[in-house]
């Protein structure tokens, strides 16, 4: 069997450098051969002379120094997926990056990398990229563009609009551009955190977002801050948070995490205690908390909110008790609310302990006030030249329509970007930018921590570094040279301070942070007071536009890996939806999948959208939540559907996946009220998990901290030890015995592992239509269940609890010792390896699907079709160490066998054959921001995995069927409230429908 490399059309190749083209032609060769063979005429020839099948090898002309074909090289770099600037290791093979992983040595993220960060490789290889200089109606040469733009930027009235740019050299380049041209630089974030900075300007005279230190916190209270999912720097925060959730290695304490939120966020799902609270009541709650902390009513009378006074008293006393170790975070866009949060934190002694203002965050530098000025200037027609660098305001501004119209009044619009999106396609000139993985860059995620990004591949197309373009247009001499020169010179002069450039590049960062968290003593208490803060605004339906963990602010909407990821809670992928609580849905008379129309007046403009409704238990009543980031019309082919052409989810040209919710974003954190009504009609929502109740099955085992401290087997008492009563002798695993332990206490359900696995193992994405058919191919999935703690009976599908707690469980092949799948395969395509793995030989598989049927964990995936890439260039993202599976073949998690063997090889070469713990890691493990996954040799008593298997919390999933999995789980321990008083039942709902 020849596993074909799937290829698409040839014409995508036109603009590629010849080396890459040659490589691609080799890649596509097997496909062409296949086409020949399919012809019946060729059949005879094939049978007659099979030795006549010729394959060719084209060696390079010149040796690439230090590069051997087939060897993976790791380069330290910085993720360009968003402004959080996590440290990454780029795995580069044969001259192209094939995988991104978190950099373990990075002081902030410590090895994790989110789904978006890993998936940004898609943006590098997809064929929708801008392949050089363009004008609005077609291609242009760089000279034409440079001449026109240079002339324009010298004419005055220049504005430069960028996203968050944190790098010192990058900022220097921008400053140089502004200095030469008199341009005004405005930066903005589509999902703004500017209120935090603005509030600190008022209360602490520093317009910065502080660096939060969840790792120092014992009590964390979050008000709508999705800090594990999307807020400011989620990977870093998740790593910090996980440090306080670790019960291994003798640690016996957990932090206490309380979440107040309106929709159900990932962070809320991981909280110890979660309260439903409409956004409208957030101010009232804050005032209530602050008043209780202060002991008087100095912040005014709090309005009515849903949290019971008893609960609030308890939480306030917990906060007070944890003084110096407490942290209150708030995701609000309201500056007033953030000021009050600052007061609370100040009162709790958080500054200097859990909040670092000195080494403050530079991960969200967007300035809403400056943006407003730009919009006003655009409106007024005073902007002559607008330079847009890596932003998409025509899509992600709430006033996008207005912005697009105002763009017409600008004499010259120049966009620097990688893709032809809603904004760049409207601009007169488009300067094709290098993709982040093709470019040199620098970042400063936290003040004093300087990070470098280096390219993993030669630019695929005739693009130019955006900053180089700016320098060139400004007439800086550095503009004529590669941006690397500018960066290097700047670092050598300003940052390195004698350190060698190469060693900085090798390490990826220079840490010059102040070593002590410095307390800012100044606190302007009066600034925290605001007259109307305690008032609860009234309105009909509250509409929330939130940032989803999968797509984020929408810049990655064209990314198949991310689109295929299910939302952690609703498990919906390929599109957004209106999340409504079950009772709200009943009240509206809508069912899952019914189209719902939202309308509202936001900041004086009318916003409307129609999307299918999705039931979200635990969401506040009369709240409709819609994710932003969807509804992009120009995000490449992906928005028109995905998968093999004949299977594509056919959407009309120009139609988008989902609808944009940005128009519902109100400035200044105002609560958006509007109307929600059934629009008539239905749209099937693609979801990768349809049933969210455990049905009282002991799948995710959970206990409370108190119970666990009293009894380390608590929650796990019913573990049925597999009996040794068997017909068969046990097999012995003499060498390595690969095992995995997943700490459910740490898993936040963020989906990073899913994308890591898909990229590492060439797992195809299948598109909306096939997900609707329940045929997603993920080798690892994160199951989510709501607990049925109201003891409701089975009602067909979903939990009926109003505020259920959710828990996550990553499920991959469990590598059972007594694997049910192996016994039933007629052709020995799946057997147990001598190292304890359940192996699957794709080339032996004949596709009976019996193994998948007999898998109690349902982790096996069948290739229903040949899933080929739409874009030929996407094949460059394939991992050459993994077969591409053809139609009719079963596949599943191999516990990254290629990485295990590579680890063994490294042990043999560098460690005298002794495999030390940590020398092997799976893709899911190495991506996990919280390090919830541990893989290692279970026969090595020193290995962490072997120790964790002896942990009393360790349990096997479905142990009673005696499959003896090599993958085991650690019981989830929640630091629950002393007594469960948090279930605020508003009305009885137990009746049947």
């Amino acid at each position, binding site marked *: *069997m020849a596993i074909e490399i799937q290829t698409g059309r040839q014409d995508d190749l036109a603009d590629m450098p010849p080396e890459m083209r040659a490589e691609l032609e080799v890649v596509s060769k097997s496909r062409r051969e296949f086409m020949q063979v399919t012809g019946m005429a060729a059949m005879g020839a094939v049978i007659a002379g099979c030795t006549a099948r010729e394959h060719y090898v084209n060696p390079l002309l010149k040796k690439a120094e230090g590069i051997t074909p087939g060897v993976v090289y790791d380069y330290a770099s910085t993720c360009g997926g968003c402004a959080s600037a996590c440290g990454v290791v780029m795995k580069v093979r044969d001259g192209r990056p094939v995988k991104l992983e978190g950099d373990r040595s990075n002081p902030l993220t410590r090895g994790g990398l989110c789904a978006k960060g890993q998936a940004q490789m898609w943006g590098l290889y997809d064929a929708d990229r801008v392949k050089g200089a363009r004008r609005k109606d077609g291609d242009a040469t760089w000279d034409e563009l440079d001449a026109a733009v240079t002339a324009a930027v010298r004419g005055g009235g220049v504005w430069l609009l960028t996203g968050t740019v944190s790098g010192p050299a990058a900022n220097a380049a921008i400053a140089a551009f502004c200095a030469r041209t008199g341009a005004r630089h405005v930066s903005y974030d589509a999902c703004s955190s500017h209120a935090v900075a603005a509030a600190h300007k008022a209360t602490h005279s520093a317009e910065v977002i502080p660096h939060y230190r969840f790792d120092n916190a014992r009590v964390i209270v979050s008000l709508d801050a999705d800090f594990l999912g999307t807020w400011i720097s989620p990977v870093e925060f998740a790593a910090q948070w996980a440090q306080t959730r670790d019960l291994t290695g003798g640690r016996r304490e957990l932090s206490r995490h309380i979440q107040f939120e309106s929709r159900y966020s990932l962070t809320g799902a991981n909280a110890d205690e979660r309260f439903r609270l409409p956004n409208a009541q957030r101010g009232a709650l804050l005032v209530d908390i602050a008043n209780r902390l202060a002991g008087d009513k100095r912040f005014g009378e709090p309005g009515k909110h849903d949290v019971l006074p008893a609960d609030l008293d308890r939480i306030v006393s917990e906060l007070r008790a944890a003084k110096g170790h407490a942290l209150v975070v708030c995701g609000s866009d309201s500056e007033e609310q953030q000021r009050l949060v600052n007061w609370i934190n100040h009162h709790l002694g958080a500054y200097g302990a859990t909040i670092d203002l000195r080494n403050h965050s530079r991960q969200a530098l967007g300035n809403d006030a400056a943006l407003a000025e730009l919009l006003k200037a655009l409106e007024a027609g005073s902007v002559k030249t607008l330079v847009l660098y890596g932003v998409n305001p025509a899509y992600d501004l709430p006033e996008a329509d207005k912005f697009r119209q105002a763009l017409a009044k600008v004499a010259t619009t120049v966009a620097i970007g990688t893709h032809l999106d809603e904004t760049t396609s409207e601009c007169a000139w488009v300067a094709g930018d290098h993709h982040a993985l093709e470019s040199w860059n620098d970042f400063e995620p936290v003040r004093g921590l300087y990070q470098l990004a280096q390219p993993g591949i030669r630019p695929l197309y005739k693009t130019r570094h955006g900053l180089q373009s700016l320098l060139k247009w400004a007439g800086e001499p550095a503009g004529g040279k590669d941006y690397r020169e500018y960066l290097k010179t700047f670092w050598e002069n300003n940052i390195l301070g004698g350190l060698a450039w190469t060693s900085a590049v090798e390490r990826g960062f220079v840490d010059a942070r102040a070593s002590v968290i410095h307390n800012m003593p100044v606190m302007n208490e009066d600034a925290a007071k605001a007259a109307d803060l305690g008032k609860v605004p009234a309105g009909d339906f509250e509409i929330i536009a939130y940032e989803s963990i999968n797509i984020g602010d929408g810049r990655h909407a064209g990314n198949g890996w991310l689109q295929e990821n299910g939302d952690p809670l609703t498990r919906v992928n390929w599109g957004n939806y209106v999340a409504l609580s079950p009772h709200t849905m009943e009240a509206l008379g809508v069912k899952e999948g019914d189209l719902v129309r939202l309308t509202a007046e936001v900041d004086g403009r009318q916003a409307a959208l129609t999307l299918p409704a999705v039931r979200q238990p635990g969401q506040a009543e009369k709240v409709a939540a819609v994710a932003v980031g969807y509804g992009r019309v120009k995000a490449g082919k992906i928005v028109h559907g995905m998968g093999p052409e*004949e*299977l594509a989810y056919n959407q009309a040209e120009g139609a988008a996946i989902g609808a944009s919710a940005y128009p519902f974003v109100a400035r200044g954190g105002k609560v958006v009220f509007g109307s929600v009504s059934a629009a008539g009609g239905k749209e099937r929502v693609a979801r990768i*998990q*349809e*049933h*969210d*109740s*455990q*049905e*009282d*099955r002991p*799948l995710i085992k959970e206990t409370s901290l108190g119970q666990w401290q009293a009894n380390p087997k608590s929650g796990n008492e019913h573990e049925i030890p597999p009996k040794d009563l068997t017909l068969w002798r046990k097999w012995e695993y003499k060498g390595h015995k690969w095992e995995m332990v997943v700490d459910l206490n740490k898993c936040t359900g963020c989906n990073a592992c899913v994308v890591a696995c898909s990229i590492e193992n060439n797992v195809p994405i299948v598109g909306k239509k*096939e997900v609707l*058919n*329940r*045929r*997603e191919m993920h080798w690892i*999935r994160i*199951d*989510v*269940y709501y607990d049925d703690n109201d003891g409701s009976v089975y009602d*067909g599908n979903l939990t009926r609890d109003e505020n259920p707690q959710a828990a996550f469980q990553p*499920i991959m092949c469990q590598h059972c010792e007594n694997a*049910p799948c*192996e*016994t*039933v*395969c*007629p*052709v*020995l395509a799946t057997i147990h390896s001598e190292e304890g793995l359940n192996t699957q030989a794709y080339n*032996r*598989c*004949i*596709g*009976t*699907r*019996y193994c*998948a*049927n*007999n898998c*109690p*964990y*349902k982790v*096996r*995936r*069948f*290739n*229903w*079709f*040949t899933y080929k890439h739409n874009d030929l260039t996407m094949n460059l993202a394939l991992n050459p160490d993994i077969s591409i599976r*053809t*139609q*009719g*073949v*079963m596949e599943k998690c191999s516990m990254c066998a290629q990485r295990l063997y590579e680890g063994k090889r490294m042990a043999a070469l560098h460690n005298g054959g002794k495999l030390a713990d940590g020398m092997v890691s799976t893709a899911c493990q190495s991506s996990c921001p919280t390090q919830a996954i541990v893989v290692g040799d279970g026969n090595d008593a020193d290995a962490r995995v072997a120790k964790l298997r002896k942990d009393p919390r360790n349990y096997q999933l*479905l142990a009673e*069927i005696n*499959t003896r999995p090599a993958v085991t789980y650690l019981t989830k321990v929640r630091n629950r409230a002393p007594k469960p008083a948090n279930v605020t039942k508003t009305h009885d709902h137990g009746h049947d429908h």
Partner: protein
Amino acid sequence: MAVHVYSVTREPLVVGKKTLHEITHDVCHSIEGKPSMLWWLGFLTTGGIAAIGVITMFYQMYTGIGTWGLNKTVGWGFDITNFVFWIGIGHAGTLISAVLFLFRQKWRTSINRSAEAMTLFAVLCALIYPTIHMGRPWIGPLWIAPYPNLRGPLWVNFRSPLLWDVFAISTYFTISACFWYIGLVPDLATVRDRAKHWLRKIFYGTLSLGWNGSVRNWNHYETAYMIFAGLSTPLVFSVHTIVSFDFATSVIPGWHTTIFPPYFVAGAIFSGFAMVLTLLLIARKTMRLEAYINDVTLDNMAKIVLLTGSLVGLAYGTEFFIAWYSGSLYEGFAFINRATGPFAWSYWIMVSCNVISPQILWFKKLRRNPWVLFVMSIFVNIGMWFERFVIIVTSLHRDYLPSSWAYYKLTWVEYTELIGTFGIFFFMFFVFIRFLPGIAFGEVKGVNKFARHDDHAHAEVKHA
């Protein structure tokens, strides 16, 4: 020495006092004369349906299993349902030939030939499904056979029930075909000796192997026939037992059931007899074979249908009882889900068709009414199809982890292929009744004595 017991209380097996030659003539003229318009109609219609089915199968094999409605949770649906259904249908033939032969049930002679043919065609139809259900049917049949090879050699997995299936079904088909052929040889000789056309002479002459009715040959023949009956009897039970192992040896709740082997065998006999009834009632009407397929035959068959139907009903009940009695969370849920879950409709179709509808056969009058029997047999066919569907799909679609629960929706490809196999089945049957003697007249002649002695007014015991 054989003992013939003729009794007045017995009704004649062949009515109308036919002479031996008349029997020969009655059976042979249908394959000697020009085929009727009705035959042509049936032949072309079923051939067309079969062709559409085959084309669809080809399309499905080429494009991928994704053309079916299966998903990551429900890995088997129509394919294995149809497979088990057809295998079940295939049971009656051998049962009638072998088991009833061993039990000296003389009434079998009028139906055993077509029942055996039905067995072969049903097994052929059944064999289509495991072939096309493979993701890579172009390579599966090669690799599923154990033979020395250059891969190590890499053998096959003798633990896999699917491999047992391969052996069981190929054995069953081969032995049934041999049995059928042995039975055909004397009749073919008769047809040969009546043949006029040279092509027919060669065709039947080759197939009849030069049989001339020598008693020296009959001596070997009868012993061999008896041996085949003896071999086929455990075989017929083993085949569906092994098919049931596909499910019984797995870990899926609803599949992992020790009752499956007897349950499946009873179900197979049940469905097989129902299908034989369906076919015979059509044949009896269209080919005017009332003299041979008479009320006694129908009555006896109806009794077996009633018995096996009730056995199947008992099995349904037992499954529920055991699911509750075992106390297993998953097992209990699987059965509650069967009766009340998203696929409850299929469960209740199954129960009403298989358990409730045969109960009318307690009444002799209804047992002998061909119209009632025909409608009932269709019901049983449908019910038994749904039994397999219920077992396969409802067990799979909600198993251990609720996160993977999924629904199974059919596509046009699956429907077309199911109809296509019916086309293939009936097409082969039409070909069969055109070219081969549809009734084992050699054996009918053997029991024709009943007809000729039935005017004896007293019970007569004759020692040979």
